[in-house]
């Protein structure tokens, strides 16, 4: 039952070196701090592909009013599903204290345009004049049907 004490010299420390672990944790913290605000406000839609879309910095702001129309023609205000009847009043309350009254539309490329038009009408009754259709920049060199060689 004797306790064996190994003679390893006097400078051996038995503490765990936590510095690399803290480094990794801090990096993870920073990465998640950056990513988290981007994860919300996203309704899953396949945006239309366009060539001349311009960057819209304001659309990614927290208080941007975004109306999404999905492929199965459901209408979302922000992340919450809503109906066309309620959309106008909901948008009106959202924009009443804002100076920039732009409403951003994220319409699925395969969605029914009539639904998009109805959503535009609902937003129009809220007094919105400026809207924007968010799209994706076309990356492949395959033009859509009917566009002759613009790449």
């Amino acid at each position, binding site marked *: 039952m004797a306790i064996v004490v190994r003679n390893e010299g006097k400078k051996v420390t038995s503490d765990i070196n936590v510095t690399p672990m803290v480094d990794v944790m801090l990096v993870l913290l920073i*990465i998640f701090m950056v990513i988290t605000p981007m994860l919300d406000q996203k309704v899953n839609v396949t945006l239309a592909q366009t060539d001349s879309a311009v960057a819209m910095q304001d659309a990614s702001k927290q208080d941007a009013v975004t109306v999404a129309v999905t492929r199965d023609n459901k209408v979302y205000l922000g992340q919450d599903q809503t109906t066309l009847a309620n959309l106008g009043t909901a948008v009106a309350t959202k924009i009443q204290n804002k100076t920039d009254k732009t409403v951003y539309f994220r319409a699925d490329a395969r969605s029914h345009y009539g639904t998009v038009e109805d959503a535009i009408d609902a937003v*129009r009754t809220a007094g919105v004049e400026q809207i924007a259709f968010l799209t994706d920049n076309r990356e492949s060199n395959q033009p859509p049907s009917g566009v002759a060689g613009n790449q």
Partner: protein
Amino acid sequence: MSMSTSSGPGGLSSDMNVTPFIDILLVLLIIFMIIVPTTPKGLDALVPQPPKNPQESKPNPLTVVLQIANGANGIPSYKINNEDVATNDLRNKLNAIYSIRAEKVLFIQGDPNLTFAPVAHAFDIAHAVGVDHIGVITPKMQQGQ
């Protein structure tokens, strides 16, 4: 003039340890790679509000309306001011109209039975030829509601 990296008697190295520096730079690189592509892109458009007193509004003879109709087999067909335009010719026609105009205003009126993609394509072309005010006309707007 040569820098002598002579190690001391105890094996001391005078080189700077750049590994943490490179670690931090790589992490920053990854963070910015994540941020950059998520800037949203879009096409702006205007929604005309109904006039306050409709009797006084006069029709503007210079108005250009692009109609997108739902043709056979779901292929969209385009009309500019009620004149048929071939799909391939749309960009050239719009360019011919707007290259000589100062008032770059276009109204786009899409068939409600279309999908959104051909309408977005029309917006795209209109932006490409330099139209800076694009109005959306909906069926309810036409009925004056």
